[in-house]
């Protein structure tokens, strides 16, 4: 199990290769990568603020729950903070399990909890200035399915 909250860019492909190689006994690996969206051709930048200390604690708690509930062979969470350019990976989640249903469910669970329970805040830096991204009711609602 690995968790990294970092300012540096990362390569989701290289992380996937490393994660898959060490997932002994797994039959299924699911990865999710979140990217800074390119809104209609104008690449926007993003600034991500976080709460050092609480971020790592919150993510570790969520990961422990996922590993136990879906008998994961391994799990990975990487989340960036600081300034990101359009198109860059913001974060990724990877899960490895004997069977695909568990790997998918655990990855979706991790994403839903990261969205609403890990202390990150996104600010979009567009041509018209900076705007804090508003939390969506749908993200909070998504938690009720687990």
């Amino acid at each position: 199990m690995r968790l990294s909250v970092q300012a540096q860019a990362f390569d989701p492909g290289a992380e996937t290769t490393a994660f898959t190689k060490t997932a002994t006994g797994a039959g299924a690996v699911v990865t999710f990568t979140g990217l800074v969206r390119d809104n209609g051709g104008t690449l926007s930048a993003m600034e991500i603020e976080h709460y050092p200390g609480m971020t790592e604690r919150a993510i570790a708690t969520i990961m422990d729950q996922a590993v136990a509930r879906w008998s994961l062979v391994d799990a990975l969470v990487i989340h960036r903070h600081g300034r990101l350019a359009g198109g860059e990976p913001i974060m990724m989640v990877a899960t490895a399990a004997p069977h695909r249903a568990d790997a998918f469910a655990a990855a979706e669970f991790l994403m839903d909890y990261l969205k609403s329970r890990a202390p990150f805040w996104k600010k979009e830096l567009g041509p018209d200035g900076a705007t804090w991204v508003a939390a969506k009711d749908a993200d909070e609602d998504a938690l009720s399915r687990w």
Partner: protein
Amino acid sequence: MIEVLYFAWVRERIGLPRERLDTQATTVAELVAELSAREERYALAFSDLSSLRVALDQELSSFDAPLAGVREVAFFPPMTGG
């Protein structure tokens, strides 16, 4: 003494990321009332508690939670990670 942290637009409205306070407040709500009474920028930041979250010693908590033994209180908007 208690450490109070502010994040995202709460930090921007109050104008600082953290401060150390000497407070008699026994709950989060009392602390919020004390801060709001202090200056307009605090009153503005805390004007709608439904759009705020609070963490006590880095665990999500509620506004009616007691402050006894707590060293670090953080106020912030709903998270938008992932």
